[in-house]
């Protein structure tokens, strides 16, 4: 009789402790969803060098989409990229490099010289933050169909476009899309997501990877 009573009181306690341990172990694991395959591309950068989606395989890349003759419309986007770049220390990505690539819709006007001038104007370090554009048809496939970013040239030569950032992992998979629809600043969110992605990359080998795959399975998205 007493044994039964003891069992009855011990089992719930054990269960609660087990649940707490499980929570402590699994709760910190957050992953970014694997949204789509990022498009393959071949573009030309500010140094007149080709840059392809294969060149950045293995690196985490934050893409933004603007053009050099853009003015105030793009200032906010470029400020966000600059802010993320300056706050990279807050995100632990380990050995994985983080790069920034700004793709210009204006392939006619934005030759390497214009892109270099644009980079200089923004004070961008082109070793980490590159500017690129390419053949107009290829550009449409890459930006509109692949990255799903809308743009359209107006009759006065300027562009109307949707301000979007896209985060791509080293496996060439889109992991984040930022379309100005959150209350948090984009820079805050992107830095936080870089940290989450960095942790997943660091744990992509061995037993830990199973826990991260499970996190994907159970949709542990931030």
């Amino acid at each position, binding site marked *: 009789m007493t044994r039964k009573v003891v069992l009855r009181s011990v089992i719930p306690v054990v269960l609660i402790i087990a649940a707490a341990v499980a929570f402590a172990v699994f709760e910190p694991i957050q992953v970014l*969803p*694997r*949204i*789509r*395959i*990022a*498009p*393959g*591309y*071949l573009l030309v950068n500010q140094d007149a060098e*080709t840059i*392809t*989606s*294969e060149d950045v395989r293995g690196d985490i890349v934050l893409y933004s989409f603007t053009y050099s003759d853009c003015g105030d419309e793009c200032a906010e986007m470029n400020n966000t990229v600059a802010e993320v770049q300056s706050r990279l220390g807050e995100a632990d990505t380990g050995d994985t490099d983080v790069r920034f690539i700004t793709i210009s819709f204006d392939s006619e006007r934005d030759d390497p010289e214009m892109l270099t001038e644009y980079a200089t104007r923004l004070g961008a370090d082109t070793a980490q933050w590159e500017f690129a554009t390419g053949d107009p*048809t*290829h550009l449409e*496939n*890459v930006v509109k*169909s*692949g990255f799903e970013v809308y743009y359209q040239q107006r009759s006065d030569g300027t562009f109307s476009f949707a301000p979007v950032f896209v985060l791509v*992992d080293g*496996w*060439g*998979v889109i992991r984040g899309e930022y379309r100005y629809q959150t209350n948090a600043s984009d820079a805050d969110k992107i830095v936080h997501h870089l940290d989450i992605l960095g942790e997943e990359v660091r744990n992509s080998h061995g037993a830990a990877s*199973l826990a991260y*795959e*499970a996190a*994907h*399975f159970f*949709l542990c998205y931030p």
Partner: protein
Amino acid sequence: MTVTRKRILIGLGVALLGVVVAWLLVLPRLRPHVFGGAVIQSNQKAPNTELVSADGPVRISDFAGKVVVVYFGYTFCPDVCPATLDKLAESVALLEGRADEVQVVMVSVDPARDTPEMLEEYVTYFHPDFIGVTGDEATVNRVATLYGVVYRQAEGTEATGYTIDHTSTVILVDREGYLKLVLPFEGSAEQIASDIDYFLG
């Protein structure tokens, strides 16, 4: 031996049998499948652009109900493509009875030189059921871009003419036409076969 003891023994025997059955049947199913590449969880439909094979027009949707393995290559390809197609043929062979539920498609990244007929001759050398498709330059470029593939002409030798550098990933499309898995070139035939098997269900 008393009746109670007999009952206990039988009970223990049944319990033991239950554990063994659970061990053999349930546990292997509980172990998560380990994929050889990046799984896309969201519903990304594979691009369904019409391309051309030796037997006429082909779309991904033509293979609804099968797992489609998409690979980009070209017939003049000196090393990577034959190695990959060989590996894919081996994966299909490993699936044994379910091989007819899989369709391997190679999309040409050299539409200027590869004709549908050349592609057919090339891919069927590796496996009689493989299909090779091509299209005009603009169509191929668009399809490749959307599959995350990039290619460019590189200098070759005088004997081979130009070669083409291209992304060498292998992409799995599930039975409903959703793009599900991107596998790196390095994956083994066994890994690819087990991933295909996973999506066959």
